[in-house]
């Protein structure tokens, strides 16, 4: 066991648990009310969406502007499992968690499958044209959802059990960020970044660009699907029109305002810009206009995003850490004969 490494790996989780305990304490103490908690939950879901979008746009250099489409697939997938297959409101409390997790998993898988399908045109289309196809995809998904009668068509689905709690959302958010961080510093992540920086050069260096682009779409879509599932079980009501292009552009805005190619940027962008309209509530009808003006000013004066492509220490793996002894050392790898010969 490498204790130093364990501490290093685990302390972000400790921070998240601390945040959770603090919120619960403040809620009990009456300093926070349900409304703040709800804003926090939306921020958590938005962080998941923004970070996954960052994997496609910021790290792999593809342009996806229909991310809400994946979210809607996940939301509907999860809601169908919990509400229609298992009738989530009338099942014993103990069975709720597995049903919820199954729903999220199915939602994520549906989104990931479609994400792979969307990744396919990216073999042929580049830049803006790919962006338009993803936009068109998002709108087509919305149109199809509007046509399916059993799931409420345009009126939407009601009576979804509200399983999502702040604990679940924080857990999934942490898992997402941990997964993405490790992915980006893995050989996969290096390949994604190589494709972003120069696709032809990456291809020449022997990177299977097709495979990696589809992988990026798949993973990001899976995360977006799970986030969609959490969203559905938070609001207890979903309708196709809440996953329109407006929603997709929200995530794009969060991502680029925070800083593309930086997970810290996604966290900062999504959290701040989710809270900003709520903070501006005192402006009543001027709220969104002021929000838009702030956004334009941020883009004009901090074009690289609020954090400017940098990462906080716990969202980054240093080069030397990659060569450190792993957390759990397997004996077999140590006794490898070729290592002893040298």
């Amino acid at each position, binding site marked *: 066991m490498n204790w130093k490494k364990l501490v290093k790996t685990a302390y972000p989780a400790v921070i998240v648990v601390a945040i959770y305990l603090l919120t619960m304490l403040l809620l009990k103490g009456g300093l926070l009310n349900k409304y703040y908690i709800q804003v926090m939950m939306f921020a958590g879901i938005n962080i998941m969406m923004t970070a996954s979008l960052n994997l496609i746009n910021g790290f792999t250099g593809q342009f996806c502007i229909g991310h809400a489409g994946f979210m809607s697939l996940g939301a509907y997938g999860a809601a169908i499992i919990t509400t229609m297959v298992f009738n989530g409101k009338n099942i014993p409390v103990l069975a709720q968690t597995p049903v919820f997790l199954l729903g999220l998993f199915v939602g994520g898988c549906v989104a990931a499958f479609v994400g792979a399908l969307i990744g396919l045109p990216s073999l042929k289309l580049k830049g803006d044209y790919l962006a338009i196809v993803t*936009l*068109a995809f998002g*709108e*087509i998904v919305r149109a199809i959802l509007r*046509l399916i009668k059993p799931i409420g068509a345009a009126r939407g689905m009601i009576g979804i059990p509200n399983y999502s709690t702040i604990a679940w959302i924080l857990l999934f958010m942490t898992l997402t960020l941990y997964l993405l961080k490790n992915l980006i510093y893995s050989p996969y992540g290096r390949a994604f970044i190589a494709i972003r920086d120069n696709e032809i050069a990456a291809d020449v260096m022997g990177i299977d660009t097709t495979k990696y682009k589809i992988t990026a779409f798949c993973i990001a879509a899976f995360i977006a699907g799970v986030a969609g599932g959490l969203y559905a079980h938070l609001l207890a009501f979903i309708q196709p029109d809440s996953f329109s292009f407006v929603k997709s552009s929200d995530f794009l805005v969060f991502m680029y305002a925070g800083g593309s190619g930086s997970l810290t940027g996604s966290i900062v962008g999504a959290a701040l810009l989710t809270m900003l309209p709520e903070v501006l509530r005192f402006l009543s009808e001027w709220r969104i206009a002021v929000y*838009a003006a702030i*956004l*334009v000013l941020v883009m*004009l004066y901090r074009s690289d995003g609020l954090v400017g492509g940098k990462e906080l220490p716990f969202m980054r793996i240093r080069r030397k850490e990659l060569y450190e002894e792993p957390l759990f050392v397997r004996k077999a790898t140590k006794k490898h004969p070729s290592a002893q010969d040298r």
Partner: protein
Amino acid sequence: MSTFLQYLIYGLQLGSVYALLALGYTMVYGIVGMINFAHGDFLMIGALGTFFIAKLFTSFNIDGTYPMLIVAVIIIIAMLGTGAIGVGVEAIAYRPLRNKPRMIALITAVGVSMFLENFPRALPFIGPNPRSFPTLFKTVRYSFLGASITSTQIIMISLAVVVMVGLYLLVNKSKIGAQMRAVSMDKDAAALMGINVNRVISITFFIGGALAAVAGICYASVYPQVEVYMGSWLGTKSFIAAVLGGIGDIRGAMLGGFIMGISEIFATAVNSTFGYAVGFIILIVILLVKPAGIMGKLTKEKV
């Protein structure tokens, strides 16, 4: 047959709005290389502006319509005003970001679009409520092979065609058009040849804004309701039309606009949601066959 013709007329009518708006997208894209997501809102500003300008000219209103001369004055004021707003938006929000990555300008455009929608919404004399658009043209109904066509529709479609042909000639035959084409090929080389790049881009935005105002007046004349959010989905549709035709190409924008308009009307006859989605489906099919749109040329990337 008459039903088919009727749908075709509606399709041409909607298509001319899409085409006019798509021209603005395609010109800005061709010359600056950015997707101006706020372009749909220029349409809203044009239509809403016309509503207020027409109010100023109320004293000329006879039997609910205006004399032709006054209508021309109203339209020209709306075009100039919207064009000026387009130039202003470019100068304030897009010019400082010209050398930054393209997505940055796109996000700024999303912000500008939100601002253009929500600023008028917050103004006390505009507000969020839809308003009924004044009748600018006297509506006369003609019967043609069993289908009915109104004078508004005839004016609209012919106005759109005239504007498009004029624009095509402007870009391909005039001196400023030559400058535009030079800037779209290579900004730096154009600047070295003594072309004022900022001026050319300003003119592009002005033309785009003016065309959007015409599109807004056309749209509001047949669907007589104006509100602050009317531009957003029309903008998305027209943008799709521009990409469908091959973005950066003026003929492509016209073609794309009419394809979108006609297919949407025919599909709406089947099912309204299908009508909304059909444009996107056509887009995906065409891009899979021709990745740069119908008229677009695929540029080889040099290493």
